């Protein structure tokens, strides 16, 4: 056997082994050996941003409400400015800001970092802010924009044509006017353009919620159907129809005026409510949800959800008890 053949055989063995070398090195160095991280304490909290922010700000107990400037630790060290005494004409705020008193802000103010307000706060029109947490009531003026989140411990009022890029939440009541755009909303009661005025007419109908019906594709006007329904195609509740149960629809869902579903709704495509409808439970769509005027989602003293992948459109006089979320764009006509 010549040296060349020997080298050839050696190279053969080496080339068989070489693919294992990166893995062998990784076994020794253990650069990426840790298991994937799961946050064991994670719970879904629609007001998470505000809760987390306030926890970081106030949790250590070292925040002084009197100091005009101090360092705080959020995701990194930040300068927190106590801004009760505003410089005349001040409209730009580069640092974290907190207000002890209700401030007099100017239209067009820009807040580059988070805001913490211990009292009521009113943001005038065309305000641009990143995030704000208010311990009392908060009002956002016309045509303002929130880049991340805004939260009020009590009542939040959003004026016309505001853009809420991520989240607007309140501990008690959220009011939103027309022309606003959103992704996430939360409050025990959300009133859109005045809220629904027909709440007292939304009476629960006693009926069984057992059973699963698969061969139904509509409910006649005024008819009451008990039980859960799975519809493989489109489904329509005609005017005044009531489903006492939950519904899963693979096609489009249409609720004509005054119809109700006293259960949950899951749709794979578009869900349209023409107006005056009541969904007692949660509504979840892989497509869009378009609600006409006077709709109610959820019921008092409970939290339900309106969730849609591709977008949500609300009209006037709509009430949601709980949570609204879309991965697309939410808008209010």
């Amino acid at each position: 056997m010549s040296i060349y053949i020997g080298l050839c055989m050696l190279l053969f063995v080496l080339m068989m082994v070489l693919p294992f070398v990166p893995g062998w090195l990784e076994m020794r160095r253990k650069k990426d050996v840790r298991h994937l991280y799961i946050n064991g304490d994670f719970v879904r909290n629609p007001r998470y941003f505000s809760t987390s922010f306030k926890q970081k700000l106030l949790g250590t107990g070292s925040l002084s409400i009197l100091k005009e400037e101090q360092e705080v630790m959020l995701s990194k060290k930040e300068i927190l400015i106590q801004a009760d005494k505003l410089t005349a004409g001040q409209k730009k705020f580069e640092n974290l800001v907190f207000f002890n008193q209700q401030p007099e802000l100017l239209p067009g103010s820009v807040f580059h970092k988070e805001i913490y307000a211990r009292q009521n706060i009113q943001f005038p029109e065309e305000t641009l802010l990143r995030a704000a947490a208010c311990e009392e009531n908060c009002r956002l003026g016309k045509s303002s924009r929130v880049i991340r989140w805004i939260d009020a411990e009590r009542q939040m009022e959003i004026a016309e044509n505001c853009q809420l890029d991520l989240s607007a939440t309140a501990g008690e009541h959220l009011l939103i006017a027309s022309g606003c755009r959103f992704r996430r909303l939360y409050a025990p009661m959300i009133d859109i353009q005045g809220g629904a005025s027909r709440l007292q007419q939304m009476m629960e109908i006693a009926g069984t919620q057992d059973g699963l019906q698969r061969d139904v594709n509509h409910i006649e006007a005024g008819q009451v159907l008990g039980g859960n329904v799975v519809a493989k195609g489109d489904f329509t509740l005609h005017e005044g129809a009531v489903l006492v149960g939950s519904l899963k629809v693979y096609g489009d869902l249409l609720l004509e005026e005054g119809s109700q579903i006293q259960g949950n709704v899951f749709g794979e495509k578009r869900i349209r409510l023409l107006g005056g409808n009541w969904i007692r439970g949660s509504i979840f769509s892989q497509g869009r949800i378009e609600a006409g005027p006077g709709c109610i989602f959820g019921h008092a003293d409970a939290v339900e959800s309106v969730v849609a992948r591709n977008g949500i459109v609300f009209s006037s006089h709509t009430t949601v008890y709980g949570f609204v979320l879309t991965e697309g764009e939410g808008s209010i006509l």
Partner: protein
Amino acid sequence: MVIIFFMKLYFVITVLVMLAYAVRHTVFTYNRLYQPQKMYCQDILSSDIPFVSVLIPMHNEELVAHGVLDALLRCDYPADTEGNRKMEIVPINDFSEDKTREILDTYAAKYDCIHPIHRYSGDRGKPAALNEAMKSAKGQIIVVFDADYIPARGLLRELVVSFMDPEVGAVMGRVIPVNTEANILTRLLDLERSGGYQVDQQARYNLNLLPQYGGTVGGFRKDLILATGGFKVDILAEDTELTYRLACSGWKIVYANTAECYEEAPETWEIRARQIRRWARGHNEVMFRYFGTLLSTKYLRPLQRIDALMLLTIYLMPVVLLLGLLDSLGLFFLGEMDIIDGWWVLLFIGAYNTFGNFAPFFEVGTANILDASRQRMFLLPYLSFNFYFYLWFITQGFFESVVDVLTKRKASWQKTVRFRQGGTGV
């Protein structure tokens, strides 16, 4: 000549079947990486979430019982109008001979929501234990955890919320090995799991196919199962049986990629071999039972039926492949290898991309990209030898299942050995 013809035909069929699986996995990989994902309902917040009974089968689990119970007691689950959480925890002491009983009784004395069941008579094993517990369980929804699991605070709610959809019969979360640092086996299993859950299961959910209920970190509607006789005690893979029972009756299984939970992967090859053999045996038992039903059910669309069939026969494929290899060997010694004129490499391509560890290498790679993992992917070549490992033990499991079916033999349930020493886990 006839024999040679059929040998060649078998070879070609094997290659085509393997390639079909390879195409399936390619579609899944593309869908997971590049298509909008189907939303799971984890974002739904609702006060009206149903009452849940959490069942935890336990056989000699003194090392890990504290962990799962403490974790469940900490979990965030809505309360009813009187302030009581809408859940109960039912640890099922199944013929334990260690201190499991004492541990469970201590917890029951301290917490109202823990209602242990102690079993020392009747059929042994997980299916029988679950059947007994379901009879007294208060919840409409049953969630099952293995005793060595450490559920996160929000996990229970994430799983149960899916049952607000009236069509959902079962839900399955994602299982993540916690002991990846132990040795090369756990690291390889971590790779496999990532491909199987992050890509395979999620893609099947996206495409409205058939995600599989895995028996743990999952839940189902109690009444559905009780109405159809409960879990079958003579089947090892009760989770697979549940999957097909529900699918063939028109119920949906949803996969919750967001409902993640740690598990303990086997740390020795012997245990892994026993596990995979048992899975193969159980899964193939289900295959024998449900093959006909799957073909005739009216509740599945054509693509769903095809995918369900491919999933049902997944543990048959190693046997098909082994016979294909033997067939090739026979053709070789008969001098008939020219049939494919050198294209028989396709057999390996198909095979390796098929059940290359139940998630082919590109699925594993994609999963790790999605998980933002990096250097662990260098271990992918090591998975290649698992190919033979699985071939060997899955084939044994298959033949055991054939014997089970022919002789109506009852399989005895085996518990996987635990390695973690007590405490509340990570």
